């Protein structure tokens, strides 16, 4: 068993870290405060393949391995979680399912501009009455000639305000009979397609999370991803692997929170010494660091399993559950180390604290991950 990164993976970490420090660090605080999507860095991110990390090479992707993908998401999130989120959702639950389930025509049509970052991807599953219970979606697609008439009210769509290509989950209904879930590749600008309100979220504020409304939208049959009835499976596979990216994002947030906390603890003088010399602070830092490392290893393990083609059987859920909790706990402990200053927007830890929390909720809440893990346990133990 070899737990060391390859030279290529180390080079990818170095590049992603430099990119994040050069391009994202100077704007992270400002874009959070202004709730602004930083278009100025998107083109630069496209040029170094952050939008087509695992997409097939022949469509402009970089086809890096899943551990490298995690490393890149982690490094971007370490500096700016909202951009880490944009990248993770775009690659993990938009480009990835298209790469796996689309036919050749669809791949040729959609992947190149997504992989180049010229277009941004989104994933529309959640509705007001269907979150964790994905089967309860009320969006419908009714076959009509060469099209489907799609009606949907999707909420909490990450990248919603800027996404050009979105996967929309619907229930296909033909002559009043439900034919299972269908996923459509929907382009912004299609008549009947509206971007709804921008969510005023607690964290990840630079990411334009919105609702997406489709009102009698005519979506060509050529835009159906996979087959009618395959939607639930596509969604679950996308989320199962997408979770690895969210776990990596949570590891990045936790690492970032730990880094700023160590820096602060070495600078802040109380009782005539830097607080890092007080055992109470050292113990917190030690626990934080241990959790971050454990979360990272679980995440890389899930990524490794994916690359080996092994069944993830709960591995991505374990990684996501543990990493998300770690991000929340580490950010909270980091804020504690900062004391009163940590509660002010003057220090970055406050942003990490807000950004971390949602990792326990989106792409499957902690409780859904626990359900998945438990289900696997029931299957495997006699």
């Amino acid at each position, binding site marked *: 068993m070899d737990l060391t990164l390859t030279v290529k993976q180390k*080079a990818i970490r170095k590049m992603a870290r430099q990119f994040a420090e050069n391009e994202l660090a100077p704007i992270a605080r400002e874009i959070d405060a202004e709730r602004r999507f930083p278009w100025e860095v998107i083109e630069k991110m496209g040029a*170094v393949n952050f939008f087509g990390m695992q997409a097939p090479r022949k469509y402009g992707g970089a086809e890096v391995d899943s551990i490298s993908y995690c490393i890149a998401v982690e490094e971007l999130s370490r500096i700016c979680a909202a951009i880490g989120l944009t990248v993770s959702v775009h690659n993990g639950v938009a480009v990835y399912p298209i790469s796996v389930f689309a036919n050749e025509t669809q791949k040729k049509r959609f992947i190149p501009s997504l992989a180049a970052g010229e277009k941004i991807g989104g994933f529309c599953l959640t509705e007001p009455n269907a979150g964790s219970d994905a089967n309860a979606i009320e969006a419908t697609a009714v076959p009509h000639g060469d099209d489907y008439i799609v009606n949907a009210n999707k909420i909490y769509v990450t990248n919603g305000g800027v996404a050009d290509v979105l996967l929309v989950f619907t229930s296909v209904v033909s002559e009043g009979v439900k034919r299972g879930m269908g996923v459509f590749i929907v382009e912004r600008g299609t008549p009947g397609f509206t971007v709804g309100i921008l969510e005023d979220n607690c964290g990840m504020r630079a990411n334009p999370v919105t609702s997406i409304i489709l009102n009698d939208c005519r979506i060509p049959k050529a835009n159906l991803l996979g087959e009618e009835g395959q939607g639930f499976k596509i969604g679950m596979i996308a989320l199962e692997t997408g979770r690895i990216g969210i776990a990596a994002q949570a590891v990045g947030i936790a690492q970032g929170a730990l880094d700023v906390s160590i820096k602060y603890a070495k600078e802040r003088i109380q009782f005539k010494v830097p607080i890092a010399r007080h055992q109470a602070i050292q113990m917190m830092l030690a626990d934080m660091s241990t959790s971050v490392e454990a979360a990272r290893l679980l995440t890389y393990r899930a990524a490794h399993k994916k690359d080996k083609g092994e069944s993830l059987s709960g591995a991505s859920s374990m990684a996501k559950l543990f990493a998300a909790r770690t991000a929340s706990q580490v950010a909270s402990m980091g804020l504690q180390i900062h004391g009163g200053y940590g509660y002010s927007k003057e220090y970055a830890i406050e942003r990490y604290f807000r950004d971390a929390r949602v990792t326990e909720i989106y792409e499957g809440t902690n409780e859904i991950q626990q359900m998945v893990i438990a289900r696997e346990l029931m299957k495997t133990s006699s």
Partner: protein
Amino acid sequence: MKIIVCVKQVLAANQIKFDVKTNTMVRAADNSYINPNDLFAIQIAVQLKERYGGTITAVTMGPPISEEVLLEAMALGVDRGMLLSDRRFAGADTLATSYVLGMGIRKLGDFDMVLCGTESTDGNTGQVGPQLAEEMDLPQVTRVEKIEKQGGMVRLERVSDGLREVMEVAPPVLLTISREAVSLSLPSLLDIQDAYVDKKLDCFTLDDLEADEQKVGLNGSGIWVTGLTQVPNKQKRCEFIKGGFRQQVQTLMEKLREKNLID
């Protein structure tokens, strides 16, 4: 245009560890990377290749792990890497290093230019470029900021004493490249993927180079390091100015004047 770029693996500034017994620095995979000054030489070579076509070969001398800097150079647009590695090369000063680099470059046949960084960030001698030019009997220009092909000649610009010098030189030539010459760009994931998977590397030992054993490593070095001690880092100090607003401003002005920061 056939370009050769010399690169060195250096230690990350904040991770330098000394072995007090052997007076040498401890090198390991996790604390080494490409000399930042060499990146400017690589970047300008890539620009020249884009403009005039040709090939770029990166050359380094070091332990097998130095292959990493060649891969890094290839991710940035270098075509091939040449690793000069042999236990007998160890302990080399700049003279012995220049000799080995020269022997390696001779194996590559004709070329138009050899580019080097101005100096390494861990040795700071700035000697290898000029010594290599002497070793290979090449004309040399240091701290070059601009390179253009002009007919059979190469037109160069460098800044010295506040004056811009323009000169022409007939290739082959050795140039050290100023940090002002180009702005650096990062490799893409695809560039890294290609460089680290294809690994277009050749490794040469002392015997492959048919080099003189007396001219390499410690044997070939004119300078032996007899002592090495760590210099403590300068500590930043923070001082809080006390008193009322006017008092604080007055104290601040006095302190700035003391340090000659204001008149």
